[in-house]
């Protein structure tokens, strides 16, 4: 197309085919027109901000040879300014002070100038562009040209752009906000390979948007792992088409099926940081404990009784040994006590059962180990509490598999429930899973690509780490954001506090869905980090409706304001009327209280 060459514009009047003002006329170009922006005088209330409009033009080749080319310039209404130049603001103040109705006065109220600032999106040959791809405009549209609103079909074609030729990549997620009849599909390939950020304040519809995208991707069998801190995706499996595809995991932690490094992380995030002595003996103690508990059943019985007797703790015998941190604490206590008391007989028993000569440690170190079991038991207690909560919220029966990469399956949406865990532990679990998946892809042990969906991303990738768990989760997310594309790992970050997100990671996202943001810090941050977001679009952010979103970046042909289509699934947190819920609960209470009386009546 010649628009990217330096052609010369023909005045409308010189064009033999120059049409009269089209019926969908919305305004006339005024002032200085440029290739990137023009202003138009607007017909009264003919358009809204973010509307797509078009101007027809004729471009002559710069060498003067050949017929002029008919093009259509597409533009987006960025800003509408409405001014009554004959109404002095001073008079407005006077009216306000005296509570006077302006119609009663001699003030002029009839003369308004409505001007729209339009951003040029590109141009296409008129009547011959089934691809919908827009080229850069290199010559401004002519002042005084008529601007019109194209038909819905044309609009859909241009919004879809080259995706029309790649239907397998298209995700049908929205409609144009001002034109509900125009569907907006986004490029799924851009999302799964080049990362997406969904940014919105609470209640603006970000989980709704994410669910819509996930449902669309799941329909294409793309492996997805969702880290779900609040149960937003608990009802994804209720969608008939997804019933067989969604698998929910609760994050139970089989301690002795982890490597010792992992367990250190867990203990440190739930208890407190290990002392140097504790850390230096951790691997030995952990491996010994693993050997101790992995014995066949008859031997376990013997070892349970021994440990119970040695520690004079009858509860061990009563409840039996389980492979958890409580047991690990008991085991460490026994090792510590035997070494401190130089009880070499008992020590020999332990060494024999555990096949670990290193359990023999000097008396001083043994003394220092005495506090270690407390740390382990604290971690065990917290872990058990969280596991219970998590299991209850997730409603899931499946614990995470020991080989965590198994959650990546063709056509499977794996929802890892993190609800109930503290932020640190959530970050740890996320870090463990993400790290395993990343390493498996790097080493080609995992054959399938995968999309990681990170809800409440600001908790996992904060701008500044406050704990070791956060440090680790930031590191792995950064790595995925920067290198994931090479290894087929995509990332969807969802956050209600964008300003708390790590700037580097966010800027690695090539696609953005931005919804209502009221917090000025969040707005400024988003404006700073997202290059494709214009000033006028950023100004819209606090005024967006629930479900309205600005799509920007590689997922779309050009930035547009859309309304996200509803997902088929519902979220756990979709709110019901609080007062209705109260009345329902009260009725249920009353019925419960009446029930026995009625029975007695019978």
């Amino acid at each position, binding site marked *: 197309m010649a628009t990217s060459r330096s052609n010369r514009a023909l005045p409308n009047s010189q064009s033999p085919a120059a049409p009269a003002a089209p019926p969908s006329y919305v305004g006339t170009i005024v002032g200085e027109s440029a290739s990137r922006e023009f202003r138009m005088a607007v017909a009264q209330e003919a358009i809204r901000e973010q509307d797509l409009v078009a101007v027809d033009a004729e471009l002559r080749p710069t060498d003067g040879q050949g017929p002029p080319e008919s093009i259509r310039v597409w533009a987006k209404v960025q800003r509408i300014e409405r001014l009554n130049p004959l109404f002095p603001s001073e008079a407005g103040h006077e009216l306000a002070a005296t509570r006077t109705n302006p119609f*009663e006065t001699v003030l002029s109220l009839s*003369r308004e100038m409505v001007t729209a600032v339009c951003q040029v999106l590109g141009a296409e040959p008129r009547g011959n562009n089934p691809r919908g791809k827009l080229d850069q405009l290199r010559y401004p549209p002519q002042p005084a040209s008529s601007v019109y609103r194209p038909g819905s079909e044309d609009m859909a074609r241009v919004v879809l752009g080259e995706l029309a030729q790649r239907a397998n990549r298209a995700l049908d997620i929205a409609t144009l906000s001002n034109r509900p009849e125009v569907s907006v599909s986004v490029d799924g390939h851009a999302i799964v390979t080049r990362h997406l950020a969904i940014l919105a304040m609470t209640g603006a519809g970000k989980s709704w948007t994410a669910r819509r995208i996930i449902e669309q991707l799941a329909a294409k069998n793309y492996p997805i792992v969702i880290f779900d801190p609040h149960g937003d995706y608990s009802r994804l499996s209720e969608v008939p088409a997804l019933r067989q595809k969604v698998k929910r995991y609760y994050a139970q932690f089989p301690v002795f099926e982890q490597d010792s490094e992992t367990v250190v992380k867990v203990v440190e995030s739930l208890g407190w940081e290990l002392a140097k002595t504790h850390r230096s003996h951790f691997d030995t103690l952990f491996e010994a404990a693993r050997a101790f508990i992995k014995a066949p059943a008859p031997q376990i019985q013997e070892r349970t009784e021994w440990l119970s007797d040695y520690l004079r703790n009858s509860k061990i015998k009563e409840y039996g040994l389980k492979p958890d941190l409580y047991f690990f604490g008991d085991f460490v206590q026994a090792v510590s006590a035997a070494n401190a008391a130089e009880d070499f007989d008992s020590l020999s028993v332990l060494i024999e059962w555990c096949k670990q000569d290193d359990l023999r440690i000097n008396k001083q170190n043994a003394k220092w180990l005495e506090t270690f079991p407390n740390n382990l038991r604290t971690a065990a207690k917290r872990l058990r509490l969280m596991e219970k909560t998590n299991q209850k919220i997730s409603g899931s029966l499946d614990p995470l598999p020991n080989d965590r990469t198994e959650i990546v399956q063709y056509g499977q949406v794996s929802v890892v429930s993190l609800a109930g865990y503290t932020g640190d532990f959530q970050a740890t679990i996320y870090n463990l899973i993400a790290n395993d998946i990343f390493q498996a892809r790097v080493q080609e042990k995992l054959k399938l690509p995968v999309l990681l969906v990170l809800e409440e991303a600001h908790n996992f990738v904060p701008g500044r780490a406050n704990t070791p768990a956060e440090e680790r989760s930031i590191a792995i997310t950064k790595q995925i954001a920067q290198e994931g594309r090479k290894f087929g790992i995509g990332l969807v970050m969802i956050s209600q506090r964008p300003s708390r997100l790590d700037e580097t990671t966010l800027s690695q996202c090539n696609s953005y869905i931005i919804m209502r943001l009221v917090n000025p810090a969040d707005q400024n941050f988003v404006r700073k980090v997202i290059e494709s977001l214009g000033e006028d679009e950023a100004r819209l952010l606090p005024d967006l409706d629930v479900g309205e979103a600005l799509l920007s970046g590689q997922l779309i042909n050009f930035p547009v304001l859309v309304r996200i289509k509803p997902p088929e699934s519902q979220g756990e947190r979709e709110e019901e009327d609080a007062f209705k819920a109260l009345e329902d609960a009260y009725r249920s209470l009353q019925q419960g209280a009446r029930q026995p009386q009625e029975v007695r009546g019978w």
Partner: protein
Amino acid sequence: MNDHQPSNRRLTEAGVQEDLQRQPHLFVRLAENALTVAESLRGNYFKNTATFIAALRKAIADTQQGRRTDPILEVRRVPETSWADVQDEVVTFIDGGVGQVQLASQVPILLRVGSYRVRTGERRLSEREQFGYYPVILGDLEGGSKERKDFIDIVRITAELLAGLSALERTPDLRVLIFHGPLTYLVGSYAGHTPFTERDIDLFLRQYAQDAQIARALKEDFLRQAHVDIYPKITKRPDEWARQRIFEPLSFIAFLLRRLCERARQRPVPAYIVGVVERGNLRELSETILLERVFRGLRQKGNIDYFNNMYGRTDLSTPKALLDRLGYTDALLMAMLLEPGQYSESWSMNKFDGLRRGEVALPGLADEELVNFEALKPGPFGFPRIRGCYLHVSEITEPVRIEVFDELADADYLENVVRRVYLYSRLLPGYGFPVGLDIADKYAHIPTWLTNAYSKLIRYHLGISLQQGEISDAEMRRVLVQAIYMTHRDWLFRPEP
């Protein structure tokens, strides 16, 4: 003005000084005066002014409270008026604007008179407001002395009066017609212009009435009256003037003013025809009314050296001398004497002293002939008399001068005019001027982009002509090049190194 001080404090020298300090625009005006008056008057200029004003305030207050029988100036408060009192009234505001093109110097090219008509209380915008404009391209006119700087003024005055008359004719229920500026100017200075031709008047009348017959009738009415009654009094060749169907500008302006006054009077309730003047430098009220009475009183009391003693001079013994030496104007004195919401007594203005004999060249002729403009002084075929008063709208603005036709201006008429001007001006307290005139002003304003574009076009054509060798005269070429790049430099016409 007196919101912050008790009324008796206002009558003291200290009270006046406090007022001045609160009103920077007055303070600056007085400071300017202090720098321009004779050195001997500078020393205590502020203090003496405060003393003088305090004395005047006290005299006015004494009259109002019945303690004095010979008023120096009647001051009235504008009666309480709200917008509810003036609902369903049609008001038209008229203002003219001049578009000037920047070449080597400012060249006026066109004039546009705007009118803004509004009906108070009307909710339907299409019924409520109407804008009109009367454009005149100065180059199209054959008459008028274009070489004179005040050529644009007589064109504007004529066009504004035609716009006003048109509004009155077209709008049977027009209640108020307000012009921006004096209802009648000091017309003497405009005498001597070459008369307009009939073609010029046709250009003026093009926008005058929807029905061309009405416009023609106005033209013929004037020509008939001019032939029979006006030209015989001002020229020795009235028949020749009549034969040429020329329109002597002052005669035509006087005719239009009389027509305005007649039409206003013919209404069941006379329409209010008003001129409102801001930033006027007149001192007629001070000289002929206020200070005349002050000096009379001083003479009566044998205290004729009152001002000489105050200022340490010997020549401050007449109102004119006092105003000359001290630089006071009506606006300045009224700003210090009137409180916001007060207006001065009115007086019959003397706008016609300058009408004397003068020489006029007819269109297309070099010879000049003597014309007696004195015949246009107020009379059956001269200018109508004008009555004026000052109204102080807000503390931060100077009083405006209101002018009406003397023959319409009984006490009620004047009071009703003042009430409306005050009400309209209260919407712009920082300007202290009827807001509708501000609207008409903006509407009539020739936009800068238009005059800039026009000047670009002129320069472009001159440049092309020069480039193509169409202008061969060397001196003309030099002048044109200079004219072009004396403003915005053009690389093509850059000066020789």
